[in-house]
């Protein structure tokens, strides 16, 4: 899960900026949206080799970019309730399935006096 293409801070933790102390600039945060990066796969064991599988993986960065499409660049994004999950089901000799994801709640945070990155 990353947000490498986003042009505003996407923050985790209590410190909002360089030189700030915890929570000094926390403001109204709306709306809350869930963002996620996930990978799923289903495979069938075959007698020779490692088996065959099908799956998909999504990068949170894509979701975050879409989330931020209409977000003013003077706002920050704050992530909370970040959770990670890994799980696998195995049917001996037949099949397996795994599900891995990272999810978080994202909210825009007003930053008084903030300026936008130069183009």
């Amino acid at each position, binding site marked *: 899960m990353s947000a490498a293409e986003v042009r505003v801070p996407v923050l985790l933790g209590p410190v909002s900026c*360089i030189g700030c102390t915890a929570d000094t600039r926390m403001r109204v945060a709306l709306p809350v949206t869930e963002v996620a990066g996930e990978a799923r796969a289903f495979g069938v064991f075959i007698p020779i080799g490692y088996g065959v599988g099908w799956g998909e993986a999504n990068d949170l960065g894509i979701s975050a970019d879409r989330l931020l499409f209409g977000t003013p660049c003077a706002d920050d994004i704050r992530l909370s309730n970040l959770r990670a*999950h*890994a799980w696998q089901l195995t049917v001996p000799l037949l099949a397996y399935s795994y599900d891995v994801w990272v999810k978080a709640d994202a909210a825009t945070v007003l930053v008084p006096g903030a300026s936008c990155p130069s183009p």
Partner: protein
Amino acid sequence: MTTGARWLLGAFGILALSGCAGARVNVTADRARYPLSFSPVVRDASGRPYDARGWVKVGWLDVRKTTPGFVYSALTVPPTRDFSEEINAQVAAAGGEAVVDLSVTIGGGCGWLNGFPILNALPVWPGCVPVRLTGDIVRRRNSSP
């Protein structure tokens, strides 16, 4: 016993040995002393944003924590892992002011445990979730170390 009955019995046997395992953990950095940004942008106290042109990389953050789970991933111990202490130590050691391009990933190190055949049918069989936080430790170009 007919051939069909044997196949049916075998299928039930395999299904009875089916199992699953894993874990789910809440990731926090509630005691971090530095701003942590998933994007390449971080602001200073005046609200001015700094992107890659405004900061210089002084180090690489890398923190890994693996958390076990039980009862088919329903019970994770502990349910929350805080990464603050390791983040604070690594940023301070590098002389950084912030972490940018933060990334949270789940490694493949628990695949063998979560997918262990037959034994993962038992509720006491442990699973796990290996969480890794990485990012660039940076400081502003115009700041003195």
